[in-house]
């Protein structure tokens, strides 16, 4: 080591400088964030994995290592399968609604020529997204409860005495929750898509117009290719976020009636905080995590390729 000192450089000057390895100062700035993520996400995940590989005998509280037995048992459980299927339905149709409606709303908003009016409408339409799911749950409960529901009143006024209780029926409960989710979160996706639309050079539309393209053709050949990447990425992230959605479903139906609105999040929560079956809850939670990570990995790989 000492032999490497360049001739002419004095050793006294060179040595103290190299005593500490030079750290990129960037690491020092990131360190607190990494610490928080490690303590609260990475470490607990390992505990979660560990929990999911154990089985506890309730009476004696003895635990034993069972390998992947919890996973195989869970994948064979019909209620788990029902929850899994309903998670896919709920998050699939919610995301579809967010993206399609959000795209249409963004197109309409983008076409408004008065900027001030547009930004006012944009801000107001975002309000449901800023509401707590609990507040949305109250509105929901009051709107589906016959004695308080304005919808029942409107139906009566129209002479339709059909009973309106969509959350009480197994056939309609999940679709009602999907619709409420679409109502609450579509404005957010509208905002994302609108931000993308605003980056399109208006000259492109003029050029297409000169070439005789109709409105539909302009959307099809100018707008969509420009925002397609953003749309696909948003849709995948949306799927992942909505697959883990919990609050509104838990507060309004708790997975009922007859498990018809049970999704992985409510199923997992029930196992953990109601049945105190931490091993199976951790198993269900890990399956949900794998589902989320696998879906988002598709997005990340896609973005790396760009």
């Amino acid at each position, binding site marked *: 080591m000492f032999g490497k000192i360049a001739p002419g450089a004095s050793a006294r000057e060179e040595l103290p400088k190299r005593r500490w390895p030079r750290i990129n100062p*960037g690491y020092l700035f990131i360190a607190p*964030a990494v610490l928080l993520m490690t303590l609260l996400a990475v470490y607990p*995940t390992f505990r979660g994995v560990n929990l999911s590989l154990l089985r506890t005998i309730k009476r004696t509280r003895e635990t034993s290592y069972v390998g992947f037995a919890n996973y195989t048992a869970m994948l064979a459980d019909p209620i788990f399968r029902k929850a899994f299927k309903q998670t896919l339905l709920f998050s699939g149709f919610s995301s579809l609604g967010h993206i399609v409606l959000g795209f249409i709303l963004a197109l309409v908003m983008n076409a408004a020529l008065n900027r001030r009016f547009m930004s006012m409408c944009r801000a107001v339409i975002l309000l449901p997204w*800023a*509401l707590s799911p609990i507040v949305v749950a*109250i509105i929901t409960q009051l709107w589906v409860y016959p004695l308080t529901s304005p919808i029942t009143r409107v139906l009566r006024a129209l002479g339709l005495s059909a009973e309106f209780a969509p959350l009480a029926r197994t056939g309609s409960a999940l679709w009602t929750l999907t619709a409420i989710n679409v109502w609450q979160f579509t404005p957010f996706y509208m905002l994302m898509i609108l931000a993308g639309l605003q980056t399109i050079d208006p000259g492109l539309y003029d050029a297409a117009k000169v070439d005789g393209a109709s409105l539909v053709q302009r959307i099809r050949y100018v707008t969509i290719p420009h925002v397609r990447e953003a749309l696909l990425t948003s849709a995948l992230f949306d799927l992942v976020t909505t697959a883990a959605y919990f609050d509104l479903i838990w507060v309004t139906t708790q997975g009922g009636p007859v498990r018809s609105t049970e999704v992985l*999040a409510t199923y997992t929560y029930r196992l953990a905080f109601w049945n105190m079956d931490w091993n199976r809850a951790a198993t269900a939670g890990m399956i949900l995590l794998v589902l989320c990570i696998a879906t988002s990995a598709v997005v990340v790989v896609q973005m790396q390729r760009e």
Partner: protein
Amino acid sequence: MRSQVVPRKLILRSLAHIGIGAITILWVLPILWMLMSAFRDPGEPFYTGILPSHFTLVNFRKVLSNPIAVRSFRNSFVVAASAAAVDLVIASLAAYGFSRFRFPGHKGLQVMLLVVRLFPGVLLAITLFQVAGFLNVYDTHIPLILANALLNLPFATWNLRTTFEMLPIELEEAAWLDGATRIGGIRRILLPLMAPGLAATGAFVFLLSWNEYLFAVSFIRSPEKQLITATIAANIGQYNIDFTALIATAMLASLPLLAVFLLIQRYIVSGLGVGAIRG
């Protein structure tokens, strides 16, 4: 020819604006209904009319004189404000690091933030519940504050990173030439310029933490430590609910935040998009 084209365009334009206005109002109709119903006389049943026949403040008086509700509001405020403060410190450091330095692992740490952003809340609740029991902080506000800080860290970092990147490095270099240290340069030059971005980021973390329910219901047992979302949710399922008081509580829990949200929404877009995941 020209005189014919202009009015037609004008009509189309005004129709478009009326359409957008109508969609907007229809979209927020349930919220408007909630705001109106908060002023409804508790003695006036809902089936007598969609809108209240007269407006009263009695519901608000009832909520504000209910010690459990008032305490829940205060608890929510403490938790949300603490989470916002923790995130502002940690995320502005991280955002500065990501925007001004390139180092091995730069991309990997971005992906880590992304994974945290997509982490299923219910799994986090289970694992943190275990850790909280182990550390003996169950039924305190500490795990709530930390969990909210963690979940909102990605948003805060991405939003502040964009804010940092809008400020040219030359500003800092000028400060260094005048003898300022790196931290001194950040504190005296950058932070004052970022005040709107910092305020909006903090306010949004506050809003999301205030609205949060899953952790609030999982980590707290004592009623006097309960947050407002959990208190409201506990009331929804009960049989003889005082509907109008519940709506008034919900309105008090959301209206101040909606007002703040209207002010800050333009400053938070960059932290929300998945486009924030860059190298």
